[in-house]
């Protein structure tokens, strides 16, 4: 219910914000030389000649029928185009997320536990650097190194055949995945490190060790589970952020994903496309948040009991 309500509010806000932008979707269809009659016909076609209220009701009624409409500019089904582009953005996000977790969790724990060693400190410093660097810059560096000089991976683009050739598709996603993973991994590492530090300094870990556990055993049995709770919620936020942040990376690598569809849609004032993409992203963010919540409760029994106690 909350999900539906959030979506409805998001949809209404989107509708209004888009119409506040100066410009007209009909402009994407005409070029210099078009006469006033043609422009009027274009506005009629896209419906930008109708009063705003009427446009809004049309938008709401088609949404209620789960109809995302047809693009003003390409005249293709928005839902079909989104589905097509999700085959790029979803694998990209998930692979980058997985890679970032694989990098950041062990390194974060090492950085916390071995903070007094040179490599623990080095990990912290390098991760700080990773946070400071903008994602497009990382992308450009990786392209210069791995594509232009080493010629190991393509500098951008996606195969015309899509996933029909999985090897080519994976190669196309290699550098974008690495780009996101580096930037996301750096900030996740900081969270993992500080969560681990809290655990290491905690009373229960000291008690466990006093009862005879070795440090590693105590950390594995008690520490990880406790440390995981805040980390999971951060991971959820990071996953959603990556999905949204794909806009920048897709632009750098010319990938036909959701992000490039959104940018182009905004440029062209192609309202159905923009609304469709933003609704889908909102939905993804909400669902990820919901799943994060569930996973947290599975990991931490205290959350289950306390929430039930609230009567929710």
């Amino acid at each position, binding site marked *: 219910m909350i999900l539906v309500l959030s979506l409805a509010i998001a949809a209404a806000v989107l509708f209004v914000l888009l119409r506040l932008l100066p410009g007209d979707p009909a402009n994407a269809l005409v070029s210099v030389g078009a006469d006033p*009659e043609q422009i009027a016909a274009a506005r009629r076609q896209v419906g930008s000649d109708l009063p705003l209220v009427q446009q809004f009701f049309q938008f709401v009624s088609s949404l209620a029928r789960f109809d995302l409409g047809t693009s003003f500019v390409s*005249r293709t089904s928005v839902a079909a185009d989104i589905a097509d582009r999700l085959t790029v953005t979803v694998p990209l996000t998930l692979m980058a997320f997985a890679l970032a977790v694989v990098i950041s969790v062990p390194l974060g724990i090492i950085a916390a536990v071995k903070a007094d060693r040179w490599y623990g400190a080095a990990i912290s410093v390098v991760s700080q650097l990773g946070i400071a660097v903008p994602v497009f810059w990382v992308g450009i560096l990786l392209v210069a190194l791995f594509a232009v000089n080493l*010629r190991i991976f393509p*500098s951008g683009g996606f195969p015309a055949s899509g996933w029909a050739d999985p090897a080519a598709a994976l190669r196309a996603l290699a550098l974008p995945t690495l780009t996101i993973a580096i930037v996301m991994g750096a900030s996740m590492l900081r969270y993992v490190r500080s969560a681990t530090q809290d655990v290491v300094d905690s009373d229960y870990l000291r008690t466990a060790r006093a009862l005879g556990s070795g440090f590693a055993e105590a950390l594995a049995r008690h520490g990880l589970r406790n440390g995981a709770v805040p980390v999971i919620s951060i991971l959820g936020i990071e996953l959603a952020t990556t999905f949204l942040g794909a806009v920048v990376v897709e632009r750098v690598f010319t990938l036909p994903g959701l992000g490039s569809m959104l940018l182009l849609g905004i440029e062209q*004032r192609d309202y159905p496309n923009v609304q469709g993409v933003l609704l889908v992203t909102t939905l993804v963010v909400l669902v990820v948040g919901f799943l994060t919540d569930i996973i947290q409760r599975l990991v931490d029994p205290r959350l289950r009991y306390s929430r039930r106690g609230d009567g929710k």
Partner: protein
Amino acid sequence: MPYITAVSRLHHALTGAVAVLAVSAAMASSAAAQQAGPDAIINIGSLYEPQNLDNTAGAGQGVSEAFNGNVYEALFRLADSGEVEPVLSESYEASEDGLTYTFKLREGVTFHSGDPLTAADVKFSIERVMAPESKSSRRNSLSTIANIETPDDKTVVITLKQRSISLPYNLSYVWIVNDAAKELTSSADGTGPYRLENWRRGTSLTLTPSDNYWGEAPRNGGVVFTYFTEATAQNNALLTGAIDIIPSVQSPDSLAMFEGNPQFTVTEGVSTTKELLAYNDRVEPFSNVKVRKALARAIDKKRLLASIWGEHGTLIGSFVPPTDPWYVDLTGVDAYDPDSARQLLEEAGLKDGFSFSLDTPNYDPHPLVAQFIQNELGKIGVKVDINLITSNEWYTKIYQAQDFQATLQEHVNHRDIVFYGNPNFYWGYDNPQVVELIASAEASATVDEQVEKLTEANKIIAEDAASNWLYLYPQIVVSSAKVSGYPVNGLNSQFFAYTIEKSR
């Protein structure tokens, strides 16, 4: 564009440093070599992805690049030389009064779907462009057509309301489509040497040689247009061999990477794209010819062009590029002379200068040009407020509402001097003599008469400083040295791909 420079610097540093790389580079080029010969696929990198695939549905310039002459043919073709050549029209005859044109269609032509080309297809195709819902910017130029008849399958008779000397030229824009085709915004059915194989939105468009083409088969095994949203990615793709050719380079900074490198060929042709400082000639003080002439003389266009394009590009003294038949060199009219500019302003009663708002599209090169103009005009006491707008807003504010003082814009088309003959056009230039010359030029009985009248009109708009024509863009093609046979002028954004060859 600071990061482009940074990348190329990094590129040089890395190239020098790592020796092992040579091995992998050699491997990459041997893989590419297998792709040579008549079956080789030509990969073309473009910044202009079509918005849809129908040039009467607002597809944009990208569809002309990919489809004109490649997938769709017309009765005539505007060749890369600027000549109008017959294609699907085998021969034609104009009546004595110039009001009836009879076209004989070429025999043995079929669409990619297998349907034969008939006169009905031609009638359907022309009427499609003329329809009120057509988005074609050339719709107006066909408004002289009164009626189209098809006495038999291979004959088309067009009756005009008045003489139209440019009819064959105008018909070169009209794709001949199959009248049975249901949907042309995401599929295609033409008579050209290639058929549409696949369009993956946001990525690429693949053309394959058509089995039933009436003419000479393409000299390659197919063409893939790969689309980019920015020049850096496009250049990287050419550097790494992912694409073979960039039909129209839009980023001057990137030329340094390719010039002087034996692996690449840089060719400069003649473009039709004009960079304009267009005034709203209806409003004060731009309604005063003296003010317009003063601003024309105050800008050092040679330095402007050099600062943007280096050695490339051409100065023009009016709206007419050298490939239009009515071109004359008018760069001497209102040449750079800041002193006389100040004097003209004084004569116009603006001794202390004035200020105006310059609506500047927010993409290259306009913001740079605006700053240059701001600086130059500042020297004669004219203050310029730069107002950045998006290309979409430009159409609403300037093109339609005509609510502006001055703007920058690139005008891409060939033979578009006709805009100065329309007082309702966005810049509002209204000289009855020019209106009459441009209208009567179209009604000329001979090409000579047409050229004479338009040349006259061209000289008048230059003398009137109707707009401030800053420069003509260079048309630069960069390709891998293995690729040859491509058009270099790219008139009207066309890019005929069938003569391109890739060697080993």
